Each structure stands twice: as C-alpha cells, then as structure tokens.
C-alpha cells in the first residue's frame, strides 16, 4: 500500500528524516510513535505531499507520488489541530470539502453517529475544541478511501465519542484498509494498533507488533517498553 525508500528531509540545518525505509504491504492499523521531534509528523506529511523530501521515493498504491496530487483520492487524512475557516458554517465546510473532492453520502451517518446535527448551522469559530474534532473526524471518514492517516485523533474527545471513534477505526480495518495513527495516548495505541512503527532520530528504530516490542525490550507492558527505548537512547 505504502512504500517508502531512503527518505531524507532537512529543515535548514535540522536533519529530521535520515533515511527512512518503510514498507506497508497489507491492511491493518499502524501506530507511528516516537519522541517529540523524531519526525512523525514530517513522515506523515511527506506521505501526504505536504512536505517535499530532499531525497528518497514514496509510493502509494504502487505509484510514485512525486509532483502528483491525484493519489490523494486514495488517502483520508485527519489533521492534528482542527482549525477551520472561522466564518464558515459546519454544513458549509462539509459541502465545500465534498465539492472539492467528490460526492459521498457517508457524511449523513457520520453526523448522526457523532450527534452533530445541532451544530450544522453554527460557525466553526464558535465551536468547542471537541466538537471541532468531531467535525474533523466526519470530514476524514466520509470518503471511504483505502488509506487513512490519523494525526492525534483523540484530542478533545469525550469518552463516548472516543468509543465511537475506536469502533469506526475497527470497522474500517475490517474493510481491509491501511490506517496510520500517531498518538501520545499509549493506552489508545495499545488498544487499537496491530503494528508499531517507532521513529527515533529520523530513522525507524523498530517495526513490529506490540508483543514483539515487549519481548525485545523485556518489559511487561507497552508503556514501559516505550520508556525503556527512550531511556536506552538518551541515558
């Protein structure tokens, strides 16, 4: 689905990605983890074409993404901070994204799922952070694309919505989709993800299942496993 080879990216003097090789062949849920500044967001943005790599190739569904925008029809993306044009109403935003990207009917059921009906006529500037995130989720999931990228999806969500989000992610997984997630909430990661991609100083330090990670680090639980990696490298 996604194939990355020898990806390098510098921001000025700051060498963020130093030769990332990542190959995701099958569907499933992949958590991209790593300490702050390890290059998670840069990696995701590279896949989305928002960051232009200095070196390396990225293929999505077998096609090089260089200088193309068409492939983004295959990706649904949930950005980290949901700040939308403040003067737009919720339903106008949804309409606009549909207008820009294509027709879909999934938005209705998603709106119902997250109980957004009362907010449809409100301006985005007047919504709370959690409600904005729900709108963000609706926008992401309404297109039913084979690849889904979620950047901190749990931000601001109440427990009920969080459960609904998890259900949603599971349902998409069953359809055979590839889902990339970054999150700081380790319990969430542990609960949903099939595989971990651990980035450290611009390279992939570990790729595999959670159980593999635990055995590799000799730690009984996931959070400690992560912590031990960090301690090893920074101590």
């Amino acid at each position, binding site marked *: 689905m996604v194939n990355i080879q020898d990806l390098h990216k510098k921001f000025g003097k700051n060498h963020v990605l130093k030769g990332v090789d990542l190959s995701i062949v099958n569907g499933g849920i992949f958590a991209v983890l790593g300490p702050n500044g390890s290059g998670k967001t840069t990696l995701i943005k590279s896949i989305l074409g928002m960051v232009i790599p200095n070196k390396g190739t990225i293929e999505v569904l077998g096609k090089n993404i260089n200088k193309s925008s068409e492939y983004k029809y295959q990706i649904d993306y949930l950005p980290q901070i949901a700040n939308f044009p403040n003067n737009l109403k919720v339903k106008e935003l949804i309409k606009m994204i549909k207008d*820009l990207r294509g027709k879909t009917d999934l938005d209705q059921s998603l709106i119902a799922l997250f109980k957004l009906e009362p907010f449809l006529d409100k301006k985005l500037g007047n919504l709370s952070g959690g409600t904005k995130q729900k709108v963000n989720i609706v926008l992401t999931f309404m297109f039913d694309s084979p690849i889904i990228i979620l950047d901190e999806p749990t931000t601001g969500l109440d427990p009920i919505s969080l459960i609904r989000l998890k259900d949603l992610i599971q349902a998409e997984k069953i359809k055979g989709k590839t889902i990339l997630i970054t999150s700081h909430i380790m319990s969430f990661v542990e609960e949903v993800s099939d595989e971990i991609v651990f980035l450290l100083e611009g390279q992939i330090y570990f790729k595999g299942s959670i159980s593999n990670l635990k055995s590799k680090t000799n730690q009984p639980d996931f959070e400690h496993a992560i912590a031990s990696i960090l301690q090893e490298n920074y101590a």
Partner: protein
Amino acid sequence: MPLLPFYKKIMLKILKYSFYDLMRSRWSYVYFAFYLLLGIVLLFLNNNLSKAVITLMNVIIVLVPLIGTIFGVMYYYNSKEFTELLLAQPLKRSSIFLGQYLGVAISLSLSLILGLGIPFVFYGLFKSNAIWDFSLLLITESFLTFIFTALAFNIALSQVNKIKGFGFAILLWLFLAIIYDGLFLMSLILFEEYPLDKLSLVGTLLNPIDLSRTLILLKLDISALLGYTGAIFKKFFGTNFGLIISFVTLIIWVVLPVTRIIFKAKKKDF
C-alpha cells in the same frame, strides 16, 4: 485528458470559498466601511467631484498598497490551517494558492470599488466628466491591490515567522511608497547634467506605486508633463504610448509575483 480545465475548476472553487470566507469576515466590512466613509467625507469637504478625485488619488495611492500588503500577509497566516486542510485534499498546490490569492485580491478590490463607487455615484458621477478620471483611478488601484496582495503572499510564503513576515511587508510598503521616491529624487538631482528622461521613466516603471501615480498624472497633470523637453518623455506622455506601456508594465507587475507564488508553493513544506 482535460487536465487544465479541471485544475481551473478547482482553483475557481477555492477562489469562491476564500472569497465567501473573506466577504463574511469583519475585516472586509471594515475596509469597505473605511472607503465608504472616505468617499463621503471627501465629497462633503470638497463639494466638488474633480477635487475629491484628486484628493482621493493622493490618499489611496499609498493606502491601497499598505492595506493590500497587510491584508495579504494576515490572510495567509490566519488561514494556515485551512490551507493545510486543503493540501491534504487531492488538489494541486498552485490551484490552492492561486485560488486563495485571487479570493483576497478580488474581495479587496471589490470593497474598494464599491466603497468608493457608491458615494461618488450618488453624488452624480455619471453626469460628470470626472467619471473617466475616477474609473482610471479605480482600475489602477485595483491593479495595485492585485500587485501588493501578490507581493504579500510572496513574503508570507517565504517567511514562516508571522511577526517577521509582517515586518517585511511593512518595510516593503514603506520602501516602495516613500523611500524609493526619495532615492529616485536624489539620483535625479545628482545626475542632473546628464540626459535623464530615460532614467526617470525606467525608475518609474520599476515601482508599481510610481507607475500607477504616473498613469493618473497622465489624466490630471498632462499640461505640466508636456512642458518637459526630452523626446522620450514627450513620446511617453504625449501619445497613447505611455498609457499602453504603463498598463503592460502593471500587468507584468502582477504576473511576476504570481508566478513566484506558484513556483514557491510547489517547493514549500507545510
């Protein structure tokens, strides 16, 4: 495959949304109200259309670039998240930025044209022969809006730091609106023994504010301009040559920064 029309369609859609967004923002109303007020006050104080047009020209030739620059920079930085949302969509980058740019430039021009136009029309513009001067004024000021919004987008695209971006934008305005003319005047006086008409015309073409000012001078002060001896000067101001060259240069002044927006947008990381 009809790719180009497709991109154009997307660009127009983004233009539409940016435009709607701006038309609802209170800044557009402030801008519109400002011009409305300016028009009314000038007409009230001068009691005379021709004189109001002249005063108006003196005021807005520096204000329009200032507002275009500040508004352009501000819009770019404020709509950063919206831009990122769009970037994740299957849209071409150039159509995203061109769409936003045109949205800002068109809504600013519209505020200008309506804000100034309404009081002047009510005052009886259509029955006056100041209508041509006034139309020329609006056309050149719209050009200035397009040019300075484009320059502002250029600055914002190259400068991640918002404060620095604003600083550069103000400096650019200050330079082109005032400092440039000071340097220009000094160099003309310094080299007064040499034939200067070429230099002075080139110096004018290189600064869009001077260029627009010259276009308006062609209408308002042609009697004085024709008093000068230089042959090139005479050709420039005495025939339609000057008008054509000025408009062509204004168009170049729009095209160049817009091209850089496209170029820069393709390479930029978000």
